[in-house]
């Protein structure tokens, strides 16, 4: 059976967006300001703002995005509670890694030429009810948007 050209094409690598949360700092100050660092795996593709809360992730239509969280101290807990973004661009959904209780969020970019699309991430931090939102919005950028 012939395999179509599309079937043989290499699969594009998902773009990982990692949030590094200083749980002790954020619980002590009540804010993620200076306690949150964002990184993505697409610096070579044009992402900017690596290591800051104002990450600009360069995307194209069909790109799969994966949001994960790590904490500065391995004993501390932080998780993504919600991601709010224009649903016409992508619809983030929460999933769990198989055989674990660790969650990740994923979405597929629906359009090219999205310009600059800011979004918000809300984190649950620590063992209590503390929820905090990104102090400045990160964004997805696509098409001819300026950085």
């Amino acid at each position, binding site marked *: 059976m012939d395999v179509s050209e599309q*079937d*043989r094409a*290499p*699969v594009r690598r*998902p773009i990982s967006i990692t949030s*590094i949360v200083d749980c002790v700092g954020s619980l002590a100050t009540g804010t993620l300001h200076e306690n949150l660092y964002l990184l993505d795996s697409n*610096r070579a593709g044009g992402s900017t703002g690596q290591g800051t809360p104002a990450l600009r992730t360069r995307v194209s239509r069909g790109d799969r995005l*994966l949001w994960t969280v*790590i904490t500065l*101290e391995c004993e501390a807990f932080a998780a993504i509670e919600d991601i709010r973004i224009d649903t016409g661009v992508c619809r983030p959904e929460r999933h769990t890694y198989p055989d674990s209780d660790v969650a990740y969020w994923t979405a597929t970019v629906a359009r090219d030429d999205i310009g600059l699309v800011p979004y918000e991430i809300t984190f649950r931090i620590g063992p209590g009810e503390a929820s905090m939102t990104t102090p400045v919005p990160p964004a997805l950028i696509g098409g001819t948007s300026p950085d």
Partner: protein
Amino acid sequence: MSQQLAIIVMIDTENALEAGTLRGNTYLVDNMRRLGSRGECSGDLVSAVVGGHWSNGGQAQEQILNWLVGSLGSVPLTLPRNYHSHRVHRHDSRSLQSLGRLADAGGANAEDGDPLTEVRRIHREFGARIGTARGRHRHAHCDRLMDLTGRIVPEESSRRGDPVHSHPAPVLVDLCGEAVEKKVIHPAQYGSPDQDTDGWYWSAAVDTSRPGTYSYTMVVELQQLVRGPAGRTWRPRRMSHKARLNVTSTPMRNGFTGAGIGYLPVPSP
């Protein structure tokens, strides 16, 4: 003992392997920002290590540094170190159960009635097999690829390029450089730097009696997927990256009485 000091080393593995360097592909974050660390989440972190001393100048308490290495192109550090191995074992169990059911039914329960097609499906789902550059010795969690959502990657040899996969976690194999040579830090490795046990993390006690800024070098081993005559293998690649410590020492102060380094339990002037 004071709070343990943590340094997270995040490596953009895909780009580091392509460029052949950690420069520009490494981001360091510590939990000492409020103590004066500079360059958070950059490749040029200067970690503040604030020690304390008694009236006789002796070091009052230990400062302990811990390094933890992660990868932007891998499943997160929050998953257990043996997650990949565990997923391969679970996956193999399910494949064996499928074969068992096929055998028990004499092939009658194959999806399209052809037992050979079902066997081929199970074989493909077994996963893309990977060897190691070390020869026949196989590491259970590395002989199959896992993707970024924890699923075992099926064998699809018809596709061009390598399957999308979660990179094996980078392993810190050595801490060296000025701070070690001058015995400002005394590093110790917990675990073993090979793919089976994953070299958990490094710790170092700090001699804060000699304030100053000292550099240190991290040697990290990444795994690159390469294709050869015998199929795909993992090839280890070692790269190094420098960072710095800014060691200071201040007089100890009693948090309850406010007393300083004098002999009386009264607040210092």
